[in-house]
């Protein structure tokens, strides 16, 4: 890693390069001389630039990765023996200086200031390849250059393609096996080009030469790590809509007693990992590929075990280079199923701090460090109620215990006097446990104080209220949402609000005034202002809504009603017809007449003016208070001026206070600036906005997405994590612990960390099942075509499951016709029963998951088109019948239907004879049953068969069988439903044959027709042209046959000559043929000789190769038992 000092660059002083540079400069210096002189060229140039610009664009996708992103998931994939483990070891060593012994499960390392990586090795098993393909952000695809590409590589690439195609980097290993440099070069080139055709032209392919000390060369690994660090990721649609966790740890939480009683009992398991994808909602259903669907019983946030460094100057120091791999043996800690083992080398002493300790050792030392007893700790525990207050110690409480409740006063920096409530009667333990809660309560109380402070300035009784609140603060929940809402119906102490003091004041009897001091009230308004926007406030209403049980439902009702009268001016009348309202189930809010405010009052009417554009002022408050008076001051003075004014004035004060708090942060300048900005925006939108929109549609969408993301981020920033989790769910990047109850015991018993455990969140719609219509194509490398009703294993969404598809083809745009087999080189449709998945999701299918075949295992790939609860596949059905009576164009047909009812259903349907005469079913006949009358376009024959073309619906079987590979001890041997042919083969059953279906040669007797005889009388009358002209056979030979031919002498001469020439030619040909044959024989002999030599050579060579291979295998088997066997 030590960087060698590089030679500084020296610019060429002479030679072609230097000249080139000069030329460039001259271009710059004299632009006129190089001005374009060809319009075509300029046009082409502009075209090219535009093309490049367009090519750059992609459909803008929302990138939901948060600021603190989860570790990038780097999957290391390749056939066995190609160096996956070595690569991970090298990379981990590069990042953390840590030598990994064994690699089990995900390994998370901090790779940079703001980047973490999770490495995961993919076992050579189709199940884990599928699972890994669904979660990997970056795939390091290892290829043994010595061997070349293996089937697994291509299978994995195809799986990747259908599941979103994450980024891929190829890594060629075993390059040191090549002795011949030229061969190495050629192989590299060959592999590279094959790799490119598979991914894209120019895909990055790395070359790792040899192994030094069990690792790849340092600089090569560093190079690779650099490429990993600069990798950019485009969000994948599935992962951008689903939350998921790649578990890096699993613990069995089942009660050991239960397991002891029944070792096969269902287990409660906690799984740990980083949240990825989108937010995980608390009660989401999840799918664990290889196990099935489960409900999350509990999620909790854990502190990040591998956090990003807080402050980094330039590069990470060693302490910040963390590694987290709970299932691999790292840091001396081994997380087993039910225990944590800590490896300690030799003996160690906690006092010698100079030695560097592993994480495990530190844990043990921490345990040893516990000196105090629990009681002591309680004694020492502190509670700080307010930020600025001195911490309250548990020991202090004892002194105060004589008094029930007391409060102390404190003046903080701002000069505000704050009350500190001291709970004398509270249990000490509780307090130390629940100090957080108490703090919350405190804050709540303050809010309440704020609410009423203005009104009760003159009122002393509210103090009692306050005290009362404090008393009950630990017991009750706060429910109030708004200030000034009085609650007349419920005056019990438990829900007595401070704000309802005016009503409650008289009834107070619990607490007496402890002292009449009102000092603490000083500065209350300011405090109210400061606390007004307190986060805790909103809890009230949320609690009402969400923590509501039946009893609270009523409360919320009353509350909701209370909300209505927000002004003390109007006296609320209790609703008496409430019963009737409850009975009716309507979305409309029925407000009864007497609940309405009195709108006949002039002031009342006026007070609403601020809500109209005709009323001025910026907000309601100003209007209600000052502005209204300005506009309509005179008017009010005349009529009810004083009363109204008084009240308005008061309100105005309130509102002014609120105002201050509302726009506190803004000074006059800022406000002006904001106004200006808004105006400018308006102007822009009006004048040059439209053009821009048209111009840059892409940018517009992009900025829209960003704006929304910004909003998402900003909205919950101020909320506490619990509320955030409740509203937003668990965000990606957080480390969570997920408790899943009732997992099958095999999950734990056969848990193997080398197989990925993924928790994939399911959207609310994805829990249901239905018929899925997909567009499917048999993979061109798969050797067999697929048969309808043969079970097929699909990898769709998170799930891997077996189902029974029916293939079909949409023939004429109206109906889907069933196909018995998939077309050879064409897409077709398939329908099967399975979990509802969003249309446009890709999938791949397999015939079996076991490794018995050497051939390409991906049987088909495709995409989901449609979800439905019924299917519309049909197959052809021909009903046949025969005529039993024929009139002119009418015939009676039987043997097509069994009853007249059936006929009735088909009345008016088109029928046809084999000879092509079309007809229609008319009506059933009384006898025989099922016979009917039909008309045809022509007279049909008795020998004609009449048929009716119909369509018969075919329904896929409702079969869904999740691949539970994780529950097996032998993960690769999952056996699903067998195909019919497999069962036949196993049981040695013959294929049943319908004798009718077999083709036989059709024997047709030749038809003989009698000669046509025309009566003589008729013949005579016929015109000559129509008369049969049958001639008798000539008995004598004709003249031509009888005559003798005598040649002329010249003719004779020619004839002889021709004969002679021909004889000569024939002789010559014969000779030539013989010669060629001879030559050919010689040649063949020679050829055979050569062939023999070649064959000998080849067999020798083959023998050598096989021997070497055998040796290699023997070595592997003897050596590393952790390796997987190569498939054969």
């Amino acid at each position, binding site marked *: 890693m030590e960087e060698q000092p590089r030679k500084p660059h020296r610019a060429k002083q002479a030679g072609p390069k230097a000249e080139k540079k000069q030329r460039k400069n001259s271009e710059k210096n004299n632009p006129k001389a190089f001005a374009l002189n060809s319009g075509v060229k300029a046009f082409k140039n502009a075209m090219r630039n535009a093309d490049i610009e367009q090519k750059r664009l992609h459909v803008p996708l929302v990138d*939901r990765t948060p600021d603190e992103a989860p570790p990038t998931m780097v999957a290391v994939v390749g056939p066995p023996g190609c160096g996956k483990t070595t690569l991970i070891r090298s990379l981990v060593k590069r990042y953390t200086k840590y030598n990994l012994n064994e690699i089990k499960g995900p390994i998370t390392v901090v790779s940079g200031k703001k980047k973490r990586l999770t490495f995961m090795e993919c076992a050579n098993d189709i199940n884990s390849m599928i699972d890994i393909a669904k979660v990997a952000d970056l795939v390091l695809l290892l290829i043994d250059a010595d061997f070349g590409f293996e089937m697994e590589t291509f299978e994995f690439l195809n799986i990747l393609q259908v599941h979103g195609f994450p980024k891929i980097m190829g890594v060629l290993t075993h390059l040191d096996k090549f002795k011949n440099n030229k061969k190495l070069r050629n192989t590299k080139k060959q592999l590279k080009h094959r790799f490119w055709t598979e991914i894209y032209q120019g895909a990055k392919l790395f070359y790792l030469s040899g192994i030094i000390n069990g690792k790849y060369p340092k600089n090569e690994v560093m190079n690779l790590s650099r490429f990993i660090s600069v990798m950019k990721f485009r969000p994948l649609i599935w992962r951008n809509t689903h939350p998921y966790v790649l578990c890096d740890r699993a613990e069995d939480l089942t009660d050991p007693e239960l397991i002891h009683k029944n070792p096969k009992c269902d287990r409660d398991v906690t799984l740990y990992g980083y949240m990825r994808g*989108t937010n995980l*909602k608390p*009660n*989401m259903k999840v799918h664990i590929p290889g196990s099935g669907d489960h*409900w999350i019983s509990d999620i909790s946030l854990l502190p990040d075990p591998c956090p990003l460094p807080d402050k980094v100057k330039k590069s990470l120091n060693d302490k910040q280079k963390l590694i987290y791999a709970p299932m691999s043996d790292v840091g001396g800690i081994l997380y087993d199923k039910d225990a944590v083992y800590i490896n300690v080398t030799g003996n160690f002493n906690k006092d010698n701090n100079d030695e560097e300790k592993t994480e495990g050792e530190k844990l043990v030392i921490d345990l040893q460090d516990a000196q105090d007893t629990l009681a002591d700790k309680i004694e020492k525990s502190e509670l700080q109620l307010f930020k600025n207050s001195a911490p309250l110690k548990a020991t202090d409480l004892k002194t105060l215990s004589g008094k029930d409740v007391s409060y102390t006063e404190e003046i903080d920096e701002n000069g505000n006097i704050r009350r500190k409530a001291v709970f004398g009667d509270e249990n000490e333990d509780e307090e130390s446990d629940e100090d957080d809660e108490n703090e919350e309560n405190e804050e709540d109380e303050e809010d309440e104080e704020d609410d009423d402070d203005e009104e009760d300035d003159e009122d002393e009784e509210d103090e009692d209220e306050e005290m009362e609140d404090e008393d009950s603060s630990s017991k009750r929940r706060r429910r109030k*949402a*708004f*200030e000034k809402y009085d609650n007349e119906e419920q005056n019990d102490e438990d829900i007595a609000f401070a704000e309802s003091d005016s009503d409650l004041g008289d009834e107070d009897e619990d607490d007496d005034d402890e002292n009449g001091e009102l000092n603490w009230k000083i500065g209350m308004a300011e405090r109210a202002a400061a606390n007004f926007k307190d986060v805790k406030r909103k809890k009230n*209403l*949320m609690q*009402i*809504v*969400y923590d*509501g049980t039946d009893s609270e*439902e009523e409360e*919320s009702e009353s509350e*909701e009603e209370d909300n*209505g009268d927000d002004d003390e001016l109007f006296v609320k009348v209790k609703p008496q*017809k409430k019963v009737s*309202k409850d009975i*009716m*189930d*309507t*979305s*409309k*809010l*029925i407000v009864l007449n007497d609940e*309405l*405010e009195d*709108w006949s009052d002039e002031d009342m*009417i006026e007070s*609403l003016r601020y*809500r*109209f*554009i005709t*009323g001025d002022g910026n*907000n*309601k*408050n100003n209007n209600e208070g000052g502005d209204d008076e300005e506009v309509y001051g005179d008017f009010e003075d005349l009529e009810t001026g004083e009363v109204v004014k008084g009240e308005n004035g008061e309100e105005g004060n309130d509102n002014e206070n609120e105002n201050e708090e*509302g726009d506190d942060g803004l000074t006059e300048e800022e406000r002006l600036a904001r106004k200006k900005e808004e105006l400018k925006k308006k102007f822009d939108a009006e004048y040059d906005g439209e053009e821009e929109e048209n111009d840059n549609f892409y940018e517009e969408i992009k900025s829209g997405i960003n704006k*929304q*993301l910004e909003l998402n981020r900003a*909205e*919950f920033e101020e909320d506490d994590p619990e509320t955030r989790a409740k*509203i*937003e*769910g668990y965000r990606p990047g957080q480390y969570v612990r997920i408790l899943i109850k*009732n997992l099958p015991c095999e999950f734990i018993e056969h848990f193997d960390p080398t197989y990925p455990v993924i928790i994939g969140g399911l*959207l*609310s*719609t994805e*829990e*249901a099942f239905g018929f899925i219509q997909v567009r499917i194509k048999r993979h061109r490398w798969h050797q067999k075509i697929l048969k309808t009703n043969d079970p097929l294993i699909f990898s769709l969404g998170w799930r891997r499951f077996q189902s029974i598809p029916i293939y079909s083809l949409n023939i004429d745009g109206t109906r889907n016709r069933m196909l018995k087999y998939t077309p050879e080189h064409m897409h077709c449709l398939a329908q099967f029963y399975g979990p*509802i998945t*969003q249309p*446009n999701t890709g999938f791949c299918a397999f015939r079996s998951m076991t490794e018995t075949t050497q051939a390409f295992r991906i049987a088909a790939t495709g995409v989901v*088109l449609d*979800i439905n*609860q019924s299917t519309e596949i049909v197959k052809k059905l021909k009903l046949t019948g025969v005529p039993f009576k024929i009139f002119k164009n009418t015939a009676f047909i039987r043997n097509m239907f069994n009853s007249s009812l059936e006929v009735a259903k088909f009345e008016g349907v088109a029928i046809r004879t084999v000879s092509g005469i079309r007809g229609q079913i008319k009506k059933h006949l009384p006898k025989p049953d099922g016979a009917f009358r039909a008309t045809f376009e022509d007279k049909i024959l008795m020998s004609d068969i009449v048929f009716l073309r119909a369509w018969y619906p075919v329904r896929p079987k409702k079969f869904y069988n999740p691949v539970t590979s994780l529950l097996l001890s032998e993960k690769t041997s999952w056996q699903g439903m067998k195909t019919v042919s497999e069962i036949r083969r196993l049981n040695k059953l013959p294929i049943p044959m319908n004798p009718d279906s077999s083709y036989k040669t059709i024997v047709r007797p030749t038809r003989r027709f009698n000669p046509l005889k025309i009566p003589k009388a008729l013949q005579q009358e016929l015109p000559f042209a129509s008369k049969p002209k049958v001639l008798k056979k000539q008995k004598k030979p004709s003249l031509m046959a009888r005559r003798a031919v005598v040649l002329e002498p010249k003719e004779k001469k020619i004839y002889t000559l021709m004969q002679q020439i021909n004889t000569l030619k024939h002789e010559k040909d014969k000779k030539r043929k013989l010669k060629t044959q001879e030559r050919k024989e010689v040649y063949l002999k020679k050829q055979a000789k050569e062939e023999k030599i070649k064959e000998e050579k080849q067999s020798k060579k083959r023998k050598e190769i096989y021997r070497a291979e055998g040796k290699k295998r023997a070595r592997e088997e003897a050596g590393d038992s952790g390796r997987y066997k190569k498939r054969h």
Partner: protein
Amino acid sequence: MSGSNYIKFSGHQFITQRLVLSTLTGKPIKIDKIRSEEDNPGLQEHEAAFLHLLEQVTNGSSFDINYSGTSLIYKPGIISGGKINFDCGNSRAIGYFLEPLIVLAPFAKNPINITLHGITNDNLDTSVDLIRTVLLPQLKRFGIESGIELKIVKRGAPPNGGGEVKFNCPIVKQLKPVQYIDEGKIKRIRGIAYATRVSPQMANRVTEVARSQLTHYIPDVYIYTDVYKGAESGNSPGYGLSLVAETTTGALLSAECCFEKQTSNENNESEKPVIFNFETPEDLGKQALKYLLTEIRKGGSVDTLSQWINIILMVLTPEDVSKIRISKLTKVSIQLLRDIRSFFGITYKIKPDPENQTVLLTCVGSGFTNTNKKFT
């Protein structure tokens, strides 16, 4: 685990919203104790009719109602849509059926084209006028823009109805998140005063009262009088007024009131309370006006009437933040929020805004997409 797959509810209330949520999410529900303690136990006519409507709108859904009708198991299918003709009966107004349908329709497989027969306006359910003028325009904010239409072919006043409306709705892949917290100021007021089988003068008289008061605030007040005659006028006489105030930001605040006949048949009286008693059309106009003014006073960018539709649709948006401002939560909305939590696992952030006594509702969408829509 598989046995307890049902989401369980009890009571007859909020039955439509629960069925709608169930249909949207595909989660089966079980509702028991439907009026089990009452003299007339079990599902009532309108509820049964709503189930029938659901059956027509969906494909593959199954209802399992016990003998007494007090418990219902609903396994939803997919929303198929298409052309439907449905008679709502006279027990409840069309609004009772149409409102839930508005939420379902955008997520159907085929664009929905439904004709509903029944009572178009009554005081219990949202009238078709307000659905047309208030609810449907709000769908635009969620990205359901073109092709949504509600046509009132015939008016049907209670008790005998006879009205007919045609509702068309396009389908969408996904909704858009909304940020709509600016309530703005009222710039115009529109209204519809209808009269059917009564003297057209009634509508004019209603209009007169409302307009005279409203012009006090703003000059841009226009109230259409919509008089139905002959075949279009349904089976019963009636008149009413619906008012919509539109603000500068496009918020719609609405109120309505319609005439009700006092003497309805006996058994109906317990179910359908007569809420108002109007002597003259002027009284009705005043009442509607009062409602509108109360609504205006309450504020919010989303009025009380359209709270629930906004609350449901916000949950169905992509996983982005949506935000609206409402005046106060109604009982229906509160229950809806709870039901949404049990169906979607989504909790709203409910924050009262003390400045103008409104409530801000914020939620992160569930990432709902229309899985029913075909991919080509």
